[in-house]
């Protein structure tokens, strides 16, 4: 269980060489000489297959369009990210880019691509493909989520508007070198942006117009990664086979199938009966039983997202009343909730940044803990003694057992303080629409984790940020976050994020109610299983059968 708070580092760049060594060793798959393979850590790689189960399918398996977790890890398998993240140090580690240089002003990144890289149809992967991929994301007709990432390149705005066809911030001096120039330095460039860059085969897609969900390529992707696409029956099944000619060595796990099982109970029973091999979405209430199952192993990994109760700061009674929000935080025992309903043995107190992130500051991020007496006095300070005059509704989406339980629980606890709380569940579309339009009092929805880089959370806290649902606005926070995003010295950034967390803990635009651990339930017949905070299936290629 990787729950340790990460050790601090001086500079991400200086770590690169150390990480390169550890990373390279960790990432190499089993050697591929065509002979029968045996993984070094035990177990065989012959005829290995794994059947995964989940309860909802992703929208896209095209890497420039994929936005949800299943989409991410499937595209990670079929394509090669430029860099990977080391699961322990969270530092960037070479993958497709075998080395990189960063200019002293922090704006120019020069990547050298590994010449061995080739696509699954045999063609070599060159800087042309990388360029094509980035330009696709800057195309005016692009409908995916990554445009803001690449908008940071010099001259990108003109391309996005359609007034330019070439990008000065992107240069390809030769087949294996690519140079990216940012208009502003950005500390998260490697760990956030380069991590998501998975080059598409330009020779298959050039001149075919902008890629959308319905393009043939999006239905049958071809990449350079360790797995080859086999089949995707939307809403039902996804299958991929090992790429025997993968340039870094064929993976040990030969075949991966993921079935969509909409009913959580059936999913659970299939794990218990053995019809499924693994799943990362076990229902929490099943955890005690699964933990006792002698055929299964339950891994618990630091979370990638937290559940949060977001306040609409444009509406009474929350507008301008931080004390009321603090009272509510103090009035609900979230620690007991996590123990009881999420079966977490040792819940950590709420925080805005995941405790697994290097930016996490346990002291500064002291969100008010459960203290009913304090809650009562805070209510008085807030101008609502005994909860008088406080009436609001918590909304969430139907079909999420955790959120449904949270609503009911919070409602009962706050009612003890005299607050009138009602709850409502709506269909996803209706719910999201209400949230994004600011049509709510309190919304139970998740917030990201700051893994691998805290800048990912900026959009939740800056004025008019895209995921700043409650319309929180604090110029001090805006300033600190902008500075932290541009700085390159990690110690300095950490100090800035600590100050942000201290302010957030006072302002409480949302209450991070629980960090929901990632679970991986898997049969004990699989070896080399090592789920990490960067993703439970991050090294699925190395799973063997024992």
């Amino acid at each position: 269980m990787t729950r340790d708070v990460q050790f601090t580092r001086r500079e991400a760049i200086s770590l690169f060489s150390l990480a390169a060594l550890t990373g390279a060793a960790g990432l190499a798959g089993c050697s591929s000489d065509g002979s029968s393979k045996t993984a070094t850590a035990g177990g065989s790689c012959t005829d290995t297959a794994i059947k995964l189960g989940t309860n909802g399918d992703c929208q896209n398996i095209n890497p420039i369009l994929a936005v949800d977790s299943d989409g991410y890890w499937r595209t990670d398998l079929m394509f090669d990210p430029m860099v990977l993240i080391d699961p322990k140090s969270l530092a960037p580690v070479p993958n497709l880019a075998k080395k990189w240089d960063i200019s002293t002003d922090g704006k120019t990144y020069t990547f050298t691509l590994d010449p061995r890289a080739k696509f699954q149809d045999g063609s070599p992967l060159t800087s042309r493909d990388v360029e094509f991929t980035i330009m696709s994301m800057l195309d005016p007709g692009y409908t995916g989520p990554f445009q803001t990432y690449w908008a940071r390149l010099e001259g990108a705005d003109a391309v996005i508007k359609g007034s330019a066809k070439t990008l000065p911030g992107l240069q390809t001096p030769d087949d294996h070198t690519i140079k990216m120039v940012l208009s502003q330095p950005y500390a998260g460039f490697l760990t956030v942006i380069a991590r998501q860059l998975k080059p598409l085969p330009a020779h298959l897609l050039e001149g075919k117009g902008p890629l959308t969900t319905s393009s043939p390529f999006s239905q049958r992707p071809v990449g350079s990664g360790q797995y080859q696409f086999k089949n995707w029956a939307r809403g039902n099944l996804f299958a991929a086979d090992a790429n025997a000619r993968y340039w870094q060595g064929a993976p040990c796990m030969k075949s991966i199938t993921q079935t969509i099982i909409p009913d959580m109970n059936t999913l659970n029973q299939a794990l218990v009966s053995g019809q499924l091999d693994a799943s990362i979405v076990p229902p929490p209430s099943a955890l005690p039983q699964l933990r006792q199952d002698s055929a299964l192993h339950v891994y618990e990994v630091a979370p990638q997202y937290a559940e949060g109760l977001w306040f609409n700061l444009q509406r009474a009674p929350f507008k301008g009343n931080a004390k009321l929000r603090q009272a509510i935080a103090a009035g609900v025992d979230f620690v007991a909730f996590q123990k009881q309903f999420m079966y977490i043995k040792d819940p950590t107190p709420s925080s805005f940044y995941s405790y697994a992130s290097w930016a996490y500051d346990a002291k500064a991020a002291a969100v008010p803990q459960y203290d009913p007496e304090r809650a009562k006095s805070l209510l008085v300070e807030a101008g609502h003694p005994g909860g008088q005059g406080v009436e609001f509704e918590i909304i969430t989406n139907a079909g999420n057992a955790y959120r449904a339980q949270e609503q009911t629980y919070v409602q009962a606890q706050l009612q003890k303080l005299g607050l009138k709380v009602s709850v409502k569940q709506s269909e996803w579309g209706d719910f999201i629409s209400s949230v994004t339009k600011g049509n709510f009092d309190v919304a139970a929805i998740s917030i990201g984790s700051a893994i691998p880089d805290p800048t990912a959370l900026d959009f939740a806290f800056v004025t008019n940020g895209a995921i700043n649902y409650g319309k929180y606005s604090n110029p001090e926070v805006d300033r600190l976050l902008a500075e932290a995003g541009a700085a390159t010295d990690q110690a300095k950034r950490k100090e800035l994020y600590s100050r942000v967390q201290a302010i957030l803990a006072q302002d409480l635009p949302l209450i991070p109610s629980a960090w929901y651990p990632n679970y991986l339930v898997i049969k004990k017949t699989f070896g080399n299983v090592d789920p990490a905070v960067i993703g439970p299936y991050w090294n699925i290629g190395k799973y063997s059968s024992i």
Partner: protein
Amino acid sequence: MSEPVLAGPLVAESPPQVSARRRAVQRFVGNRLALVSAIYIGVLAVVAALATAIAPYDYAAQDITKALQPPRSGHLLGTDEFGRDVLSRMIAGSRVSLTVGVLSVLLVLLVGVTIGLVAGYLRRWDGPLMRVVDIFMSIPDFMLLLLLIALFGSGSWKIVIFIGLSAWMSTARLVRGQVLRLREMEFVMASECLGARPGRVMRKDLLRNVLDVIMVQATLSISLVILLESGLSYLGLGAQPPTPSWGNMLAEGRDFLSQAWWIATFPGLAIFCTVMAFNFVGDGIRDALDVRM
């Protein structure tokens, strides 16, 4: 059928009821299953009406320290994951299940019987009305209901209206079929000869004589609606928390089947028994009145 929406058997003959109600009641009482079921429903209705007055605990009162306790004294049916008393929730749930059942069916009857009467009696309306019925019946069972819920949200009251809007068709067909036969009969013709207007004929003569069919259809429909509501709750579209209904208690409890079987089992049994009771009563009425539908 998986989620049958009030599909009734074929329509056949039915002689006009003039007297013999007495005999019918006697026949019903002689049918032991139907009698027991009727008593059960009566008791249930009383429980549902009194609900909070007789429940041992507040159905929403949480106490995590007492969560997931098996049935024993103090909590006759155990507690759920929030520490709430299952028995009290069952009692409150009976209110929701019965209310939704009865009110939905009343709405269905209102719409269905009216349309059936008009279509059966007024020839000019027959064609178009039946075409409308056909359109609605061509939509797969659940789909219209799901469409309405997905668009307008769920909740007990809305469910009542949506079920009413999506399940009236077979009642309409049934009533129309009955009326088609009745309208050729002498007492109807006599009424017409006396100058009664269509509305009056429909109200006075026809309606009275389709009442038997309606009664049987109604009881059978209530059982189907209760099943429907529990199915919707299973999908998360029924009564919203913290209001308990047997259906959503079952849905919440299914995650705990292995550790706390009582949370889901008792509501499941309640649904099963109540639905069966209504079915037995409906059958009993049909046999007692010798209604051939």
